[in-house]
């Protein structure tokens, strides 16, 4: 698969659009279909396609394994952090209305950060699972 020029060219053309579409799904999720989960999966799929075409090491160069592992936890922490921010600003846990002077603007702000948290965790977990599976194959080949 790595040595097929047609796949190489088509995949390299597609990958930027896949990543851009992931960002669109992320930030347009309030208005159209989509949201953090879908955006995280699509972004991970773009990186995985790059890994399939150019090799696992090329994918790990873009998003190193340590960063991916950190992303898994950072997303959940962002989400939970939004909840605590609500408590510190005098509301209940995960109450977004107090995050800004205007309750509706606060809701928008809360949803924005919560969706980012979901996307970061989902993208990290998908990539980590892919790295682990693909990496095991290489270990076996070395043996």
């Amino acid at each position, binding site marked *: 698969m790595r040595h097929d020029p047609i796949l190489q060219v088509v995949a390299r053309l597609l990958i930027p659009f896949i990543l851009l579409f992931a960002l669109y799904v992320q930030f347009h999720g*309030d208005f159209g279909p989509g949201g953090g989960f879908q955006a995280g999966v699509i972004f991970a799929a773009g990186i995985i396609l790059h890994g399939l075409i150019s090799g696992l090491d090329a994918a790990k160069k873009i998003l190193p394994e340590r960063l991916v592992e950190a992303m898994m936890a950072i997303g959940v922490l962002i989400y939970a952090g939004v909840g605590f921010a609500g408590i510190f600003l005098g509301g209940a846990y995960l109450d977004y209305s107090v995050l800004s002077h205007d*309750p509706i603007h606060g809701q928008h702000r*809360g*949803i924005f950060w*919560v969706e980012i948290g*979901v996307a970061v965790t989902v993208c990290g977990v998908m990539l*980590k*699972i892919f790295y682990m599976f693909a990496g095991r*194959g290489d*270990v076996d080949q070395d043996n």
Partner: protein
Amino acid sequence: MSFWFDQLLLLVPMLMMLVIVVLIITGHNLFGVVILTSAYSFLMATVLFVLDAVDVAMTEAAVGAGISTVLLLGALRLCGWHDSKPMRRPWGKLIVSGALSALLMVGMVGLPEFSDPAAAIHQHVVPRYLIDSTKEIDVPNVVTAVLASYRGYDTLGETTVVFTAGAGVIALLRRRRLQRAKHESAGASNAP
């Protein structure tokens, strides 16, 4: 006209899914089976799209047809592309899965009609979400409003579940690698 067109759009992918399921059951080349499951997921995404569940269709296409296929192919690379011996006496498994299907069908009879506005699930909180979310949250996509704001706790739980799944995979596969390293070092010390 539009109604029958929608019915056709539903029926064609579902019939193709039926054919694919038969091919998956009878297939022996596991590579082909994995590609067929990917096609099945794409058809499922089409059905969900026709049913106006675009968010779910997107997830199905990305996770079901995309990432699971890649992971299954990765697993095949480790364990070989050919089916093991066919089952000799599948009677016990056949009875269990047949009974389960019968139970599910009995349960389906009790469900309300598809898209029936008088169904119980559309009576409880749905009217409030649909009518008040424009005033309270002002997000045009009600799915996002429900997932992120009204049901924020549930989504936090889901995100934690995804995190836990990743942590579980790390825990399982890392230990395997450590054991192999230990095994190898033990073998190396025994060899000379």
